[in-house]
């Protein structure tokens, strides 16, 4: 296999020269899936990794057409889901807070590709796409957003509380920073049961200034817990730019005695490489920090226009130069795994799939009034909430 050469004139614009292989990869693709996972494609990540107290992994990544196409598929689905959630919010079907992830899909997809469902992921409230990556369905996601019974938390959690126990996804938390000690606990349980899995605890550049993070870092390093702390640095903590909130915005160095790695979070393969490296590191040597340099196109949440603290030029600039879906599209086209038209058709299919899921979710009923009191306590040994006459406490709603 001939190696490709990436001529990158600057760190921001990427010109990917096509791979010259003996095989022609031109094949008809009807549903944009490829079972070809034997051909190896090799290219370099957009920027080299910067490391703190460790040797960075190689810049050269290998992948297969199957994986490449699946990345495109997953990211396009996530992108479409978030845009659809935007319209649903404006149509007042989703209420409260809705934090959208579009622009950051590469982190979710790259991380999934490097790990198994036995590894745990825990994050804060920007959790829709990670939920999808962990095995959640579109129907569960939209039903939960609209507060219906068919949602992943039966409608009782909402946008900020998506969970999937079987998929190893532990949420979905409203108070940022608090999920990091929880992630430490997941890693502790993994070490306790000796099952050779790791935990990824995600947080943002805003939450990186929480004290409990440093407490968690200390404990994870003290006991060599297999915890990987991932800072999704989208450069804005709600309306505050990172340079206004942090004295040292080099979040990957914040661990001091804990090694760190800075990764281009808009490049799914860089994320995958870094996560693989981090998993091996964590199982052998204990915690490591990954800083994903990423960007969100939407505002902090749907109540935030996102333009009062940054210019529209900046947003459109990033969209043009670093968009994660575009990067994968260019890779696919340059390696001739699909045509432009096929990709466009696929995106139309995705759009249809999302619309169908929304329609189905709209049919899902609202939770029963009795659900107000279920799952407050677990029924079982030594637990009933007794009223005056030893019957279960019941409330009669009008």
């Amino acid at each position, binding site marked *: 296999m001939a190696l490709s050469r990436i001529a990158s004139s600057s760190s921001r614009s990427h010109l990917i020269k096509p791979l010259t292989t003996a095989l022609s990869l031109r094949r008809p693709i009807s549903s944009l899936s490829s079972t070809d996972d034997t051909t190896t494609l090799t290219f370099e990540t957009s920027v080299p990794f910067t490391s703190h107290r460790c040797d960075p992994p190689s810049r050269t990544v290998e992948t297969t057409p199957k994986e490449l196409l699946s990345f495109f598929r997953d990211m396009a689905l996530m992108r479409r889901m978030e845009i659809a959630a935007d319209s649903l919010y404006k149509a007042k079907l989703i209420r409260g807070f809705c934090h959208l992830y579009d622009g950051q899909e590469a982190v979710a997809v790259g991380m999934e590709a490097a790990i198994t469902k036995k590894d*745990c992921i*825990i994050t804060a409230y920007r959790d829709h796409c990670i939920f999808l990556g962990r095995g959640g369905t579109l129907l569960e996601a939209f039903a939960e957003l609209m507060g219906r019974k068919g*949602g*992943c*938390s*039966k*409608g*009782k*959690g*909402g946008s900020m*509380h998506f*969970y*999937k*126990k079987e998929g190893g996804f*532990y*949420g*979905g*938390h*409203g*108070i940022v920073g*608090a999920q*990091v*000690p*929880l*992630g*430490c*606990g*997941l890693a*502790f*349980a*993994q*070490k*306790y049961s000796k099952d050779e899995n790791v935990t990824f605890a995600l947080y943002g550049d805003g939450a990186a200034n929480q*004290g*409990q993070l440093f*407490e*968690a870092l*200390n*404990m994870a390093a*003290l*006991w060599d817990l297999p915890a990987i702390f991932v800072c999704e640095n989208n450069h804005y903590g709600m309306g505050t730019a990172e340079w206004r909130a942090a004295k040292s915005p080099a979040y990957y160095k914040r661990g001091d005695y804990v090694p760190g790695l800075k990764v281009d979070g808009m490049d799914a393969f860089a994320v995958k490489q870094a996560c693989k490296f981090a998993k091996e590191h964590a199982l052998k040597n204990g915690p490591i920090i990954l800083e994903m340099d990423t960007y969100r196109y939407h505002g902090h949440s749907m109540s935030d226009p996102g333009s009062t603290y940054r210019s529209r030029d900046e947003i459109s600039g990033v969209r043009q130069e670093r968009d994660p879906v575009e990067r994968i599209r260019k890779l696919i086209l340059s390696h001739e795994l699909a045509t432009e038209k096929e990709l466009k058709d696929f995106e139309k299919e995705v759009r249809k799939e999302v619309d169908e899921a929304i329609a189905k979710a709209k049919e899902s009923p609202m939770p029963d009034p009795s659900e107000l009191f*279920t*799952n*407050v*306590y*677990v029924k*079982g*040994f*030594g*637990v*009933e*909430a*007794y*009223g*005056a*006459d*030893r019957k279960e*406490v019941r409330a009669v709603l009008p």
Partner: protein
Amino acid sequence: MATIIQGIGAAAALSSSNSFDSKRFHLPSRRSLSERKGSFLVVRSDGRVIPGSNPRGRRTDQLITNAVAAKADASAASTASKPGHELLLFEALREGLEEEMERDPRVCVMGEDVGHYGGSYKVTKGLAPKYGDLRVLDTPIAENSFTGMAIGAAMTGLRPIIEGMNMGFLLLAFNQISNNCGMLHYTSGGQFTIPVVIRGPGGVGRQLGAEHSQRLESYFQSIPGIQMVACSTPYNAKGLMKAAIRSENPVILFEHVLLYNLKERIPDEEYVLSLEEAEMVRPGEHITILTYSRMRYHVMQAAKTLVNKGYDPEVIDIRSLKPFDLYTIGNSVKKTHRVLIVEECMRTGGIGASLTAAISENFHDYLDAPIVCLSSQDVPTPYAGTLEEWTVVQPAQIVAAVEQLCQ
């Protein structure tokens, strides 16, 4: 060894055992801890055993239900043939904890100085050498994050016990306790259970200063999703500890700094108490006195004076602070028609305040007089000894309140 009971009116309070619940039975022979088989009994506070809970049912009538060391009995039998074994409250807690750790490998302890040091009140002494450093984990001083860590571990199925060196320190972990511990079962639609036990000493001690003498039951009581219990004797300390560990819900177990050296004889057999039941300490006819934790002993001391004056108070140790055992309390109110609540919590928004509201709502028709609630003062606990005494309710005030109510 000499009985060491700190600051609760010594053996006088406990020796009025003749007026205690007299359903008392004797085991024919002593059995050591290691000989016990795996079966256990669920004991209700009035001595009845829940049928079917013990597969070997024949032992039900041979259980000591209220095994307080009593002078009246001591003269009848020699120490060697007395059933059960004597220990101090912190040893009872340790025994319960150790039995549960033996029984279930997922049970682990986390806290400051619980491992090598053995626990600041010796509740976990000897456990770290036996079970290892990971299972009895010495944490750094980081309450917020080690509480969060325990909750995260509980989400995967472990059953951690979080020890706050003093309950007051757990205020630093309030976010984790309220948002993650209490709410995760609900917001995940039932996917995760959080079977943690949060325990530690609280209450007013001996001149420990304001920040180490906090009464925190009231702060945690509104959190939906958690249960709260308060232990007061070695017998109920061990039983509640075991029940809390076995429960799938997060339980906060309130211990009291001054009660750790209480001595009592408890059964050799394994027993687990119910988390939601109150304990009938002394049945009576004239007035219901509801109390918990250390104030139980002040009440019993006042009861002695009251009995001499001709009153017959019914004393109930509510034990379960959330949810209240309104069944036992309600039956008592229906009998006596007068209620006095004696607690160590603050007046404003305390356990007594909630209990007053609950009783008024449910049993208003049965009350002949307004409910009186004696709580500790709404002040930070002063250091000076005399001032500290006046912060909490004293037996003399209890006697005066009963006399007033029973007019």
